[in-house]
């Protein structure tokens, strides 16, 4: 049995690596065809994010929110729900933080307090947003896929309304908030880059979520309920409560992620479309195989590819859309559980055969 498990593990890893490699190679192939200067383009795409401090800062600025929404989707995924509200939570987290920051945070407030308040506002906003599809689902059985997608769209307009009426900078020609006060911003870790100190907050959140997930009765309850509800119920676990709390927590993490992003990267709130970071969280969670401890790696990979694509877009003649196709390929390959499955089964079969033969040989020796 031990071998069977090892083979399963190796193939699990292999599947992800091969999926990424295939997607990456396809991208390179595409570049080679499309671009007039393919060697330059490939270089920009693969090494680009690490060439200058500014570009690396861009990568880190994506990495930070991806971790938050990735953790959020991990929790929802563990509940075995397809609740996509992380997007709405992320958006409203950023929006409500901005409204509060431009209206209620005086310039004299100590930065620690201002940032702390911002995080709380973001988390609360995310939590409340997530409560809608979560409670509809767990209490009334309404499909969370439909409600979360619908409300994600609805909340985009709620956010635009809030900004227009309570935070709009009328001196600007487009819809955006007034400037976020300096004391409510997260400072840069590397000066004059987008790599901001939100990374420390996220690191703490990753650790906390891992602890909750693996080390508390609540984490066990969520995982058991998500894995097999009938079983959880039989063992006396209060499923509804556990699943609601987990999804609210997920919303709060996403919302906090939105606030952190605004605090670290932007001077003012400017999202007039859903930023997509919440939905990308699903991708991160799938890459991380529901394991919050693997979220940083998955988030980094995604941030790296996205940054490479963005640089490609402005530094060469290759369109951004191409990279979105690559993502499709990755999701397809990682989501396809049977990818490489036949080879895996054949290997397990051979191992069992070998074991049988060994057993027989041993029996022969014993009888002699």
């Amino acid at each position, binding site marked *: *049995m*031990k*071998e*069977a*498990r090892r083979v*399963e593990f190796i193939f699990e890893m292999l599947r992800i690596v091969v999926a990424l490699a295939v997607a990456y190679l396809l991208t390179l192939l595409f570049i080679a065809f499309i671009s007039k200067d393919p060697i330059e383009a490939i270089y920009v795409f693969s090494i680009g994010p690490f060439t200058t401090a500014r570009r690396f800062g861009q990568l880190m600025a994506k990495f930070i929110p991806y971790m938050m929404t990735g953790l959020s989707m991990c929790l929802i995924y563990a509940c075995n729900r397809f609740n996509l509200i992380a997007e709405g939570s992320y958006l409203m987290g950023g929006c409500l933080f901005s409204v509060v920051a431009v209206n209620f945070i005086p310039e004299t407030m100590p930065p620690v307090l201002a940032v702390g308040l911002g995080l709380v506002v973001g988390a609360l906003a995310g939590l409340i947003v997530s409560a809608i599809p979560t409670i509809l689902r767990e209490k009334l059985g309404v499909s969370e896929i439909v409600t979360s997608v619908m409300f994600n769209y609805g909340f985009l307009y709620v956010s635009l309304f809030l900004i227009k009426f309570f935070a709009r900078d009328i001196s600007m020609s487009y819809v955006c908030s007034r400037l976020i006060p300096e004391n409510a911003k997260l400072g840069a870790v590397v000066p004059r880059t987008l790599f901001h100190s939100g990374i420390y907050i996220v690191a703490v959140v990753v650790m906390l979520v891992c*602890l909750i997930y693996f*080390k*508390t*009765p609540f984490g*066990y*309850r969520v*995982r*058991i309920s998500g*894995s*097999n509800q*009938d*079983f*959880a*119920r*039989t*063992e*006396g*676990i*209060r499923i509804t409560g556990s699943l609601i709390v987990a999804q609210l927590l997920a919303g709060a993490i996403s919302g906090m992620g939105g606030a952190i992003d605004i605090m670290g990267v932007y001077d003012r709130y400017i999202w007039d479309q859903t930023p997509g970071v919440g939905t990308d969280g699903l991708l991160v969670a799938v890459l991380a195989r529901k394991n919050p401890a693997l979220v940083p790696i998955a988030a980094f990979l995604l941030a790296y590819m996205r940054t490479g694509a963005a640089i490609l877009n402005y530094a060469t003649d290759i369109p951004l859309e191409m990279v979105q196709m690559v993502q499709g390929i990755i999701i397809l390959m990682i989501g396809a559980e049977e990818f490489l499955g036949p080879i*895996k*089964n054949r290997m*397990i*079969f051979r*191992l*069992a*055969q070998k*074991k*049988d033969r060994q057993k027989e040989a041993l029996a022969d020796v014993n009888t002699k």
Partner: protein
Amino acid sequence: MSKEVLRMDGITKIYSNGFTANHDVNLVLHEGEILALVGENGAGKTTLMKILFGMESHQGGHIEVNGTTVKINSPLDAIALGIGMVHQHFMQVPSATVAENVTLGIEPRQGSVYDKKEAIKRTQELSDRYQLMVKATDRINDLSVAQRQKVEILKALARNCRILILDEPTAVLTPQETEELFVQLKNLKESGISIIFISHKLHEVMQLSDNIVVLRAGKVTGTLVTKDVNPAQISRLMVGRDVVMSIEKDDPKPEDTILQVRNLVYYNDENVKVVDNVSFGIRKGEVVGIAGVEGNGQNEIAELITGLVKADSGEIILNGKSTAGLEIRDIRDLGLAYISEDRMRYGVAANLSIRENIMADRLDRKEFRTGFLYNSKKINSHVDSLIREFEIACDDQTQPVRMLSGGNIQKVVVAREFSSGANLIVANQPTRGIDVGTSELIRKTLVRKSRNKEASTLLVSSDLNEILEVSDRLLVMKNGQIVAQFAKAQAVDEFELGEYMLGIKRMTAEEMGDLL
């Protein structure tokens, strides 16, 4: 010798978890032969037949039907080759009639409209020709289990089957119904149909079959001619030693009542009264068994006591407290443990580790925590000691439960439920479909726990051997009611029990004595 219709040669099946279900199995079937495929639970009989019926793939060997090598990739292929299978769990539409079920997928038509008359005529003709005694116009809902089984046979016959596979057909039948089935199977044989009959009941095999193939741990240990062997010889091939059926135990010394069930009534989703005014009690130090043909309310009794479903009236008192209105958590805290009949659905979370599965009912206990967080050392040593105690064959406690064999999965379930500190164990089909060793461990533990006053047991089981040997007191259920009580289960005669289970006999209140 008559014509050979089927040959399975060197069949090997290894599941993707590495479990070898069949190893180089050879089997030959002739026209008009009844071949018994015997072996203990988990010997690979059903797997072999599922391969033949196209429900499972196989890695080695080949299959010949009527002398030509065939590839059977799906049940449709099998049906086209004239192979039919009657599963343990019937696949029928309960609200439709017999004729509709039998002709489902091969409907007779008049133009493009379903020809009801023709369907009934064909079905009735088949039923009459083989004397199966099923009425084509009856609804499946109204039929007994035995009749529903006949419908499955009809379904196969309507598809011109020449090879009929029956997977433990007598498991759900009473002795009388079994006799009837055997007569009908012999009729089928006379008309040239070949039958493969899966069983682990030796007296049935001796009575019915022409030849026997014995499987043990996925391998053929003997191909025998029935008239030349005796049951003892077969049994040695099946289990490698003579089957020891009896469990030795002292007489129980019952003390105070632990569980009282009074006037319990429960209607199921279809609004059928499946538990009808049931009252009984369980005392400290005894094992109470409930026998009955499956589907007569035993399973519902177990689910009512555990709180999975709520009674319509009546009360359940566990350790002095009524369980009405309590959540499952609270009922468990009163001292209840539950082994479910469907372990993959109610007994484990297959994708999670052994550790998580064992911890599932004790998440809130303070002894595993330091502050808010679990203490890994304490949890690990707790789980490891249970793995050792119950001899769960695994790599370590982080192994996902789905990678274990059926018997070991059930060991995970009992390791949790037996160590929960409960003083009442509701064991619902605790040894169904698992190996002899594990079954013995479970049965002996249930008896031991009752004798040392640790926990009493309510045992629901379709395995007559088990229910008669493990129980002290035996109740029989029929149509949701308790129809008989025996004070000493080990002294009960199987055939007499069958008559109560079938509803031919029924004890009066005086004969039953005090149930509480």
